[in-house]
């Protein structure tokens, strides 16, 4: 008997918006005058991100990333950088918490407009092994700005 849980849908995972960010990443490249930077990788699958921020007076003035990896990790990084400019550090950390909640399947987080394009990644929560991909840039952010 087939007792496996219902099948998650691929079309929910690989939405056009995600592929667009994967193929045309926003804010990709080195950031001049960065005050904070963190490199993180996932040794299991090889996803890499080097996140660079210019933080001034506890406000993220600019953010860019260098990275390579799967569509989920790279799209998440691209979408994240769009969202972070001119946010305070506490605001950025609150977004990271929202993102993490969405990955854990929290539906109210997935409806939160504050997450912008990132809401397209809600489907990742149905693919447990890929959650670490989506959270890689966010973990880099948290590492970078934590006091």
């Amino acid at each position, binding site marked *: 008997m087939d007792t496996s849980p219902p099948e998650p849908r691929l079309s929910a995972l*690989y939405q056009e918006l995600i592929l667009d960010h994967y193929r045309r990443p926003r804010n990709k490249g080195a950031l001049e005058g960065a005050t904070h930077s963190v490199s993180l990788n996932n040794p299991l699958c090889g996803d890499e991100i080097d996140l660079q921020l210019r933080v001034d007076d506890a406000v993220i003035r600019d953010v860019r990333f260098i990275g390579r990896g*799967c569509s989920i990790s790279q799209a998440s990084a691209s979408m994240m950088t769009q969202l972070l400019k001119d946010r305070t550090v506490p605001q950025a950390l609150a977004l990271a918490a929202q993102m993490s909640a969405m990955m854990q399947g929290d539906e109210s987080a997935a409806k939160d407009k504050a997450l912008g394009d990132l809401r397209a990644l809600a489907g990742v929560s149905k693919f447990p092994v890929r959650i670490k991909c989506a959270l890689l840039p966010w973990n880099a952010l948290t590492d970078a700005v934590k006091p």
Partner: protein
Amino acid sequence: MLDAARLRADFPLLARQDHGRRLVYLDNAATTQKPEAVLHAIADYYRTTNANVHRGAYSLAIRATEAYEAARAKLAGFVNAWTPEGVVFTRGTTEAINLVAGSYGRAHVGRGDTIVVTAMDHHSNLVPWQILCQEKGATLRMVEITEDGRIDLSDFGTALERRPKIVAFPYVSNALGTVNPAAQLTRLAHAVGAVVVVDGAQATPHLKVDVRALDCDFYALSGHKMLAPMGSGALVAKPELLEVMPPYHGGGEMISRVFDDHSTYNKIPHKFEAGTPNVEGAVGLAAAIDYLGAIGLERVAEHEQALAQAAIDQLTQIDGVTVYGPRGHRAGVVSFTYGDIHPHDIATILDQDGVCIRAGHHCTQPLMRRLNVPATARASFYIYNDLDDVAALAGSLVKAGALFGYVPA
């Protein structure tokens, strides 16, 4: 080709359904599934024979010891080992290579010496040598590979000019499927006085291995890649080398007499088998050897070669797919990429069709750098796979192409 559908019936896990589909298991280079005969041998061992080996004076313990030593003799015959005493049971290939590095290597490699490895070695036949070289102040020399994924023989020759103490290479590449000319490489290495370590993890399950014909000095293998349980494996070595090597792990079983401040050691192979060994693993490995022996390794190799060729033919017909490694004679490992679709995305998409492949660097990061890819997708075949599985792989890959806009949805 083998009657894969009939063989599949021997493998309980492969009979399972996932989302109403049969499992298309194509990650055999990582580990194989286990036939009923192996599962039964393990359960039967615990039901009828279990006791600690080489210790008890009672008949049950004697039977357990006999089963363990019979497995050793069987494995010795399977790879044509020099003697059964030259077969040291280990947890697998990784531990076997670490044993050589930690015992032979530490005793024989010194400052300024060279150890030669290749750019297609698995991390398990690279990192132990890196550690040894760092400890001893020795040099690690990595032999390059050719465009089509073979060991560059000219660079191999140049590396040998350094008169290395140890030369290590894989018989079959786990990432490319290349079958290396192991006997020839061994001859060349011996000519400069090196000791040869062959990583046999990917060769032993898939082709007829004859370590005496190869004439290598050390040969490492894993049971779990050849139908046997995880944690079973062996180092097969020339007994005269094992005789003079210092012990690797200290503890029970490996000793002869223990004084307050020193000990004398047991005979080989027991000198290298400290602690209670994995008897169920050895018994399971013996059952796996019987199972494979009944099929014949020549037929196994033929079957895999046919599947690999079919896979290469079908995958290369998909626009944007690149297949790595040599064409022609090769093992049943097919590494590929598909346009800019990351291998992890490929693996997730294929998984939805019940197709299990590996995505990543395959524990060969130096090789991935040379191929200029961060990772590849890898399909690897075994006796229970058939052309339907190859078709399922190709069909599912087209689906991935559609999701990423390579082929019309």
